[in-house]
């Protein structure tokens, strides 16, 4: 047997019972009282409606589960498809939703135990606790402890518990059926109850949380392609049927008044029903009472246990994507459990249990799961539309796209019927998850989702606002990133050498991007099919090999586009470059000169520092840096410093002063050099004609590094209207440096063209601190 098969030891029955065992929890044992009080006999309909809504999502979850049988389930699929922003939302919602649900199960457990022992309510200082809360607290501590030390369950325990539960419900249903009186179901809809159906559905929906938990252990299921959909869909169908029968019989067999508003109604109903029978002179009411009581305990316990376990899987998956710190998932060296994750989840359960009431806990659990379910359906649509490589589900949703659309709409719509307070609470949580992404996770996560990549790869066909929003929420990995757009094999090596040198000086990463030009006549989708990606890959493979000789990390991407030059700016944003090193030549990046205003607009807003290399051979032995001060010359100084450190270059600084002011010019150059860590360079002060001086000095140099003297230099460069003709006249290679100037995040999110004048946050300058106090204030 292969390792993979050995790791998978959950058979079809075990998988099914995870779903059924998690779902048949407190919901059916506790909520009939609330449901009947508000909806009368229509309570049965609310359970069916909940099941139908769950079924749509179950179909979507099945497809995603067979395509990606990975730890973490729903969170994992949403993160993969919709990206880390939604990953953060779904991860937090799923985690906290499970904690709320577990607190609800424990509350239910407390109600049941309380029926048995009749514990008194407790008041500790200002905290007044119901008896059920106190018992639930003890129960919660017990389950947290069991999961913390990871006590060994016997393989069949879960199956036995679920079969026992189903047996108890079946016996009750059968006995109820013998005593059913259809009259007690009338009127089916007492006045005022029809309007309660949807709100009550929203409350009882907590009884359907659990089928997605099967997907969170998908990696452990044998033959997931077959068993996972069967378990997920089967458990929803089974549970819905059981609930519906159970409720109809309950309401037909005992007076509605006994059920309405009673948190342990099924126990009282059982006592009444079984009390009519006797055996060997015994009254069986105690048997019925005990059976249902036992069922309630088993059900709440198995639900809570499965939820705690499932939440640690979600934590693990979140930690793996760096949305939370991976330290959360440390494994206990003795118990072999992710003890920190379990302890924190346990703490949350206890806080929620103490702070909430039964209905609040149930609805909070429901809303948060509904958010996850809605997103899950959207994730399926994205995966189907984008068809990322490797997406090959064994099970496919029928009637696509109807099923996921209905699933998403019904899941989100049901939220509307939930208590506004709970919705506000949950909205706050979503806002927290969004802030969490931007303030904490964004710098740490590495992978972007399928959706963002799909939009960015088609940036021309998509509305600007979508492209802009997609690139604005991309992860911002930490560390220094040097993007090198490549298109011409002839200049690849020199650009990569330059980029790698800068990356190596900053412990950074080289991001080689091949922006493959697709003729306007060809659609991007058609180009993709013709293998444009594969063709572009060759160049990147070479770039990767070249960069690796410098010992820097390399990342490669292919972007298909109709407009190669403009795409450079988009790519710099998408891949979060700190500096872009690009070529400039006759055919370096598309034909300059067209779409002037568009380029102007783009080049006016540089997303990062730009170094534009006019390649006349790569030789960094003698560098010439002309300066007249200013931020862009500071950038050229920083580049010179880095090249000197990497290639041991000689650096010459040139300043062209006004006629007769040579002494002042020298003083300026000395202080400028000191400021930029280039004191030991050779100083050259000339007077008179700037371009002539540069040209003369360049004869001795191998590379001229020159800062843009004003903004928009790049745009003039592509339009061919550069004032400094000298750049064309010199014989050595030229490196033009222009600093980042960026529109604000808000502008980009809404795609407005406003030109902000934001100060530079993270350009090339602050990174180069190896030369003492050279960080020039700007």
């Amino acid at each position: 047997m292969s390792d993979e098969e050995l790791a998978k030891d959950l058979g079809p029955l075990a998988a099914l019972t995870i779903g059924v065992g998690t779902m048949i929890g407190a919901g059916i044992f506790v909520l009939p009282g609330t449901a009947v009080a508000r909806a009368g006999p229509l309570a049965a309909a609310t359970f069916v409606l909940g099941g139908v809504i769950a079924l749509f999502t179950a179909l979507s979850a099945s497809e995603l589960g067979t395509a990606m049988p990975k730890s973490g389930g729903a969170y994992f699929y949403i993160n993969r498809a919709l990206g880390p922003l939604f990953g953060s939302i779904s991860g937090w919602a799923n985690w906290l939703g499970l904690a709320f649900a577990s607190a609800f199960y424990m509350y239910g457990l407390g109600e049941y135990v309380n029926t048995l022992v009749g514990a008194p309510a407790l008041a500790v200082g200002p905290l007044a606790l119901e008896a059920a809360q106190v018992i639930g607290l003890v129960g919660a501590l017990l389950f947290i402890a069991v999961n913390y030390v990871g006590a060994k369950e016997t393989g069949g325990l879960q199956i036995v518990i679920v079969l026992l539960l189903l047996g108890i419900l079946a016996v009750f249903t059968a006995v109820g059926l013998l005593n059913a009186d259809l009259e007690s179901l009338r009127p089916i809809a007492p006045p005022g109850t029809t309007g309660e159906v949807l709100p009550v559905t929203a409350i009882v929906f907590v009884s359907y949380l659990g089928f997605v938990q099967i997907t969170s252990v998908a990696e452990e299921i044998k033959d997931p392609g077959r068993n996972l959909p069967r378990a997920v869909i089967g458990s929803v169908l089974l549970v819905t049927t059981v609930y519906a029968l159970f409720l109809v019989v309950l309401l037909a067999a005992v007076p509605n008044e006994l059920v309405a508003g009673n948190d342990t109604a099924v126990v009282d109903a059982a006592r009444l029903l079984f009390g009519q029978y006797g055996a060997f002179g015994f009254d069986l009411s105690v048997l019925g009472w005990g059976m249902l009581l036992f069922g309630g305990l088993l059900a709440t316990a198995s639900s809570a246990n499965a939820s705690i376990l499932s939440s640690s899987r979600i934590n693990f998956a979140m930690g793996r994507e760096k949305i939370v710190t991976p330290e959360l998932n440390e494994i206990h060296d003795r118990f072999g459990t992710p003890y920190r994750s379990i302890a924190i989840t346990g703490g949350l359960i206890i806080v929620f249990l103490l702070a909430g009431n039964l209905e609040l806990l149930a609805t909070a659990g429901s809303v948060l799961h509904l958010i996850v379910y809605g997103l899950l359906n959207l994730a399926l649509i994205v995966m189907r539309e984008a068809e990322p490589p490797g997406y090959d589900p064994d099970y496919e949703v029928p009637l696509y796209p109807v099923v996921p659309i209905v699933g998403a709409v019904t899941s989100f719509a049901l939220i509307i019927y939930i208590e506004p307070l709970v919705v506000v609470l949950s909205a706050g949580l979503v806002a927290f998850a969004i802030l969490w992404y931007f303030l904490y996770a964004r710098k740490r996560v590495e992978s972007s989702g399928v959706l963002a990549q799909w939009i960015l790869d088609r940036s021309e066909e998509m509305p600007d606002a979508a492209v802009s929003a997609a690139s604005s929420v991309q992860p911002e990995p930490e560390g220094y990133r040097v993007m090198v757009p490549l298109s011409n094999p002839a200049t690849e090596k020199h650009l990569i050498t330059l980029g790698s040198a800068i990356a190596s000086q900053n412990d950074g990463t080289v991001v080689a991007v091949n922006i493959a030009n697709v003729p306007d006549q060809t659609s991007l989708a058609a180009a993709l099919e013709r293998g444009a990606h594969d063709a572009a890959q060759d160049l990147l493979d070479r770039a990767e090999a070249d960069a690796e000789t410098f010992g820097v990390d390399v990342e490669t991407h292919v972007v298909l586009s109709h407009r190669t030059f403009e795409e450079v700016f988009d790519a710099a944003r998408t891949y979060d470059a700190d500096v872009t090193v690009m070529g400039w030549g006759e055919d370096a990046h598309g034909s300059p000169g067209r779409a002037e205003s568009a380029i102007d607009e783009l080049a006016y807003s540089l997303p990062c520092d730009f170094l534009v290399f006019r390649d006349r051979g790569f030789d960094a032995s003698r560098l010439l840096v002309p300066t007249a001060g200013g931020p862009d010359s500071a950038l050229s100084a920083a580049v010179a410093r880095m090249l000197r450190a990497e290639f041991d270059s000689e650096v010459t600084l040139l300043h062209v002063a006004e006629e007769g002011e040579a002494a002042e010019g020298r003083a300026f150059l000395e202080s400028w050099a000191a400021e930029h860590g280039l004191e030991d360079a050779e100083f050259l002060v000339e007077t008179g004609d700037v371009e002539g001086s540069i040209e003369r000095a360049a004869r001795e140099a191998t590379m001229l590094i020159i800062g843009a003297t004003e903004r928009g230099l790049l745009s003039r460069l592509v339009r061919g209207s550069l004032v400094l003709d000298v750049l064309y006249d010199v014989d050595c290679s030229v490196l033009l440096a222009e600093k980042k100037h960026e529109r604000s995040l808000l502008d980009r999110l809404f795609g407005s063209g406003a030109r902000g004048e934001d100060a530079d946050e993270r350009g090339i300058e602050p990174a180069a601190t190896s030369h003492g106090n050279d960080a020039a204030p700007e």
Partner: protein
Amino acid sequence: MSTDLFATVFVPIADPDDAGETARSIAPYLEPDSELLVAHVVPKGGGVPDKASVEQREEYAEEAYETFREQLPEAVSMTPVTLYGRDVGETIVEGAVEAGATAIVYTPRGVSRWIDLLTGSVSDDLLENGELPVVVLPGDDE
């Protein structure tokens, strides 16, 4: 006929710390031609969901192998073996027999009795196996 006890050694490691300690303890006994199989058992539920995600446990195993390798002398090579099983001790013995090991070699971890009671002593399982010699090496830090 005589067989070198250290010809093919099967070394179970429990976690990265244990891996480092075991590697340091075993290094002096290894011959250049010794075959070194370093095993980590991913505990399985055997019909119930596992205590921790399998993917997570596999990462953990890699981390342990890495620590082991770092503590080994350059010249010695090791082969990592990941096993899956419900009963850790039993899985180690089965894995060692299957791999044709000449001995199971490990360093015991000092554990309090009540934790042993809760989690079961792997050490006892190894010592009680009737098939292979077991060498218990003293750890380097107590």
